[in-house]
């Protein structure tokens, strides 16, 4: 479903060139639950931005459902993000002025659905995360775990091809973190692909496949094996 | 303090600073031009008319009954005798108009007799008797006043001009531009062919129209005119004016029931009416400049606060690295000074440009040179004062911010 071929990302200023991501290739199939781990500064965030089309590649191609999405203009990229990717952020990023219903509604508005269709989807997703009763409340009135679940509902509402989660439990205590992870597992079991970026290895364990990022290099192999190769790079 | 890094840092994030500089520039343009206009108008309205304004007043006698010509003359003679006889009256005269009245007579005066009026000099005309000079408080600087036998009533159906006249110095300069010596004894022509001999020159007597470019050019004519409307101008001794006004009104009303006494007005009110526009404009512009200072001051405070708040992390880092509180304050004061400087330079250029445009379009006076540096100083001060608060708050930012990760 998702194919990155010979992708790299370099930041250039007038004086300095930073290789945030060295050339790598990656394929993710439908229904996978992939974790992306690595220490701070490893390039995980850059990988996330690339995967989520929040930034452009410097080289290589990025195919989603067979379509090359690396060379699109802003309008097209926005549409792909809107329809194909569901974001879940570490700090939830719910809009404080809007109630829960309207928060889940946000991505649907940019899709052009009519009011009935939007309502149907929102109610379905809130039900999936168990928060239908809190529809009219505002984010400030919810606990951290509940807010993250709203964010998940928002991510699901557009029926994306995959969920892209960035440290989804980073701002939650262990108890809430557990329930969110359970939810994600459940969602994955019902068929949704999930790519989860995290620096915690315990979280990574819950995923079915692990990808590592170290010093800008993305690879399937575990870091120990890779270390020697990196040292000589 | 090294300006370089401050300047470079500013350039990286121009938007906030351009807004402050622009605001200073436009504010300065308004202030400079408003001030220039206010000053011009104030100067205008302060010009002396030549009269002893504090003690002089005027009134109108309007005859509404058919009188024979001789009876009209008698009435005027009686009125003047009555007024002049009152204690506290320095002098009084019957005349057609007076300075700043905004209505009156003007004639074109020529050096040569004949029909060509190409080179005529415009002058205001005041018809008076020998008491005119003293009533108008005119200072004779050359020659002398009219002798009583030079003053005469108009002759019916004859508009020949009297042969003598007293002119203001300004009129003399315009009429006899090449004359180095005295104007007394010189002759000019009025009404194409009537000669007028200069008997005396007075220092200052303005025309009735304050907006006229020739407002200093007036001529006093020794002629008593027989008309139904007479204007009497009365010059009182100091302190007597206010008591005399109702007294004269009553006396004249009672002495003759065939005429109306009206328009009793003091010269101070005449001046106020004449310069109403100037006073109003000054009021309005003062208000605008005041409002502007407040809005710009507050605006710069806001923008400065905004610029500071965007750099909270940077400031914390500086403090963590050893910058003292005064150093932080100084940073922002210097930065603001740079911005204000750009603002006042651009403002100076815009001010001059606007002034030139307004001189063209609206016949304004060009700017006096010192207004611009004065305005620059004012706006530098406003800018520095506005940034002082946010700079102080910036210096209070805790260095602990540097270690926080988000």
């Amino acid at each position, binding site marked *: 479903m998702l194919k990155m071929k010979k992708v790299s990302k370099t930041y250039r200023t007038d004086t300095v060139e930073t290789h945030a991501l060295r050339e790598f290739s990656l394929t993710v199939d439908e229904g996978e639950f992939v974790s992306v781990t690595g220490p701070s*500064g490893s390039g995980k*965030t850059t990988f*996330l931005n690339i995967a989520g089309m*929040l930034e452009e590649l410097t080289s290589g191609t990025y195919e989603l459902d067979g379509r090359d999405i690396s060379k699109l203009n*802003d*309008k097209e990229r*926005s*549409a792909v993000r*809107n329809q194909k990717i569901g*974001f879940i952020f*570490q700090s939830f*990023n719910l*809009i404080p*002025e809007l109630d829960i219903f309207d928060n889940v509604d*946000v*991505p649907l508005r*940019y899709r052009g659905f009519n009011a009935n269709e939007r309502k149907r989807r929102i109610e379905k997703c809130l039900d999936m995360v168990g928060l239908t009763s809190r529809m009219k409340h505002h984010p400030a009135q919810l606990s951290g775990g509940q807010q993250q679940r709203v964010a998940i509902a928002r991510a699901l509402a*557009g029926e994306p091809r995959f969920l892209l989660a*960035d440290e989804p439990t980073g701002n939650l205590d262990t108890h809430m973190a557990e329930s969110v992870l359970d939810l994600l597992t459940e969602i994955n079991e019902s068929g949704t692909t999930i790519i989860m970026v995290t*620096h915690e290895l315990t979280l990574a364990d819950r995923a079915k496949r692990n990808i590592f990022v170290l010093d800008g290099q993305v690879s399937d192999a575990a870091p120990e094996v890779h270390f020697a190769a990196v040292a000589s790079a | 303090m090294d300006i370089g890094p401050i300047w470079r840092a500013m350039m990286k994030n121009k*938007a906030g600073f351009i*807004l402050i500089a*622009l*605001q200073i520039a*436009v504010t300065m343009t*308004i202030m400079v031009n408003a001030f220039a*206009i206010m000053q011009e108008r104030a100067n205008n309205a302060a010009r002396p008319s030549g009269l002893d304004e504090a003690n002089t007043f005027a009134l*109108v006698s*309007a005859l*509404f*009954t058919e009188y024979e010509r001789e009876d009209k003359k008698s009435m005027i003679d009686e009125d003047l005798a009555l007024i002049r006889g009152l204690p506290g009256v320095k002098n009084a005269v019957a005349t057609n108009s007076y300075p700043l009245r905004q209505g009156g007579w003007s004639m074109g005066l020529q050096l040569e007799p004949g029909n*060509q*009026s190409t080179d005529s000099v415009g002058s205001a005309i005041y018809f008076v008797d020998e008491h005119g000079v003293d009533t108008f408080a005119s200072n004779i600087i050359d020659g002398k006043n009219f002798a009583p036998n030079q003053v005469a009533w108009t002759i*019916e*159906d004859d*508009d020949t001009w009297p042969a003598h006249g007293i002119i203001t110095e300004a009129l003399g300069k315009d009429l006899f531009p090449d004359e180095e010596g005295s104007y007394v004894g010189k002759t000019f022509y009025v009404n*194409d062919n009537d000669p007028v001999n200069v008997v005396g020159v007075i220092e200052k007597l303005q025309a009735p129209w304050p907006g006229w470019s020739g407002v200093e050019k007036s001529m006093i004519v020794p002629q008593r005119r027989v*008309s139904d409307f007479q204007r009497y101008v009365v010059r009182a001794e100091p302190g007597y004016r206010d008591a005399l006004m109702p007294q004269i009104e009553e006396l004249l009303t009672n002495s003759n029931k065939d005429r*109306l006494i*009206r*328009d009793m007005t003091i010269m101070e009110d005449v001046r106020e*009416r004449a310069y*109403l*526009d100037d006073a*109003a*404009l000054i*009021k*309005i*512009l003062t*208000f605008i400049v005041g*409002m502007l200072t407040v*809005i*710009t001051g507050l*605006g710069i405070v806001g923008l400065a606060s*905004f610029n500071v708040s*965007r750099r909270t992390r940077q400031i914390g880092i500086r403090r963590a690295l050893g910058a003292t509180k005064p150093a932080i304050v100084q940073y922002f004061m210097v930065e603001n000074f740079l911005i204000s400087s750009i603002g006042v330079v651009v403002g100076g250029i815009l001010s001059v440009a606007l002034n030139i445009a*307004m001189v063209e*379009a609206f016949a*304004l006076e060009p700017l006096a040179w010192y207004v611009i540096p004065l305005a620059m100083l004012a706006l530098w001060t406003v800018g520095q004062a506005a940034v002082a608060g946010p700079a102080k708050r910036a210096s209070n930012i805790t260095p602990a911010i540097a270690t926080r990760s*988000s």
Partner: protein
Amino acid sequence: MFRYYLKLSLLSIRANPALSALMVAAIAIGIGACMSIITVRHVMSDNPLAHKNDVLYHVRLDNWNPDNPYDEPNEPPEQVTYLDSTALHQAGRAFRQTISFKSDRVVQPEGEDVKPFQEEIRATTADFFTMFDVPFEFGSAWDAAADQTEERVVVLSSEMNQRLFGSEDSVGRSVTMNKEIYRVVGVLAEWMPVPKVYDLNNNPYEKPENIYTPFSIAVAGEWGSSGNNSCWKPTGGGYEAYLASECIWIQMWVELKSASEKGAYLQFLDDYVEEQKKLGRFPRELNNRLDTPAEWLVYQEVVDDMVGVLLSLSVLFLVVCLLNTIGLLLAKVMRRSNDISLRRALGASKSALFAQYITEAGIIGIAGGLAGIGMTWLGLRGIENAFSGYDFIAYLVTMDWTMVLVAVALAIVSALGAALYPTWRACSVSPASTLRIQ
């Protein structure tokens, strides 16, 4: 989508009340300053005779000095002589014509204890009232016959009727002026043309005269003009000589059936002047003019330069207020950058965000415009206060619906203009910045 943006805008404004209030205030004050002056200018430059602009004409003949034009570069005098005005009026070639001047009389109201007072009178002909659409409350103007017979009649203004007769129907009653008795034939309704197009020679904004009498009566009584009077050569003295002179002191207007008759009437004037040239008058080249009310107003430069000066300064004042608005909007956008990058991440395109923030700016603009109307009203009261020495100032400081609409439109345009840069910044916020640095 627009309703969505509307909803988001209102929520955003409610969430930032202080900031939003400051923005509205900044716009309102700038609009208030500008619109006050624009309103005064609008009223001052109005043409109360616009609806008759193609049929009414002001007559000018060039009877002036052969050596100098009356005014540069070659303008004929602003008024006409007694000889010419009466001759042309007599000829009656236009559909309607009127000649008039203003003078002074002393009115002697009935009653022992009532003091007489001096009043400005307009000496005119019967057509004056129909030509200038002067409204009557009681009675009517005198008829053309009265112009000829020198019957002593008057028309009173509403104010004069109030003063003399307590606003009753005074038609048929008498008014004594300078010991002569006049019969009231008509009373005007409230009438305040701004400016006073039919006679712009003195103060274009003063109230119209309070008493009107036939032209012939004034001349028979040897009334002098209290308006402007100019002569380019000596008259010789006395009233008779004055009437026969080249002095200009009379205002003449004609009404034609349509604009297409203008050429023919101008030809008539030219022919008349040619005839007079044979008698030795009109030494200058043929230079007769017919000006419509609009053209006449422009020629007279009725709107003071001071208005232009104030307008320039108030526009700059608005610019200062808008700079403040830009700053405030920028601050708001920066504060909202999380919201912006989130929406971008969730799939909003740059143009969607542009539309959202422009909508918000538009709402601020409308609010600023409505508040600006209040500010304009305040500004006009300030102007009225500054010019309180003029009794006609109240007429110049009234807002009509056009000005209200202009105020709101100007506010919206200004707000949108001010919003362009901040909104552009908003759209440029990258979606990636939502994600925290690990």
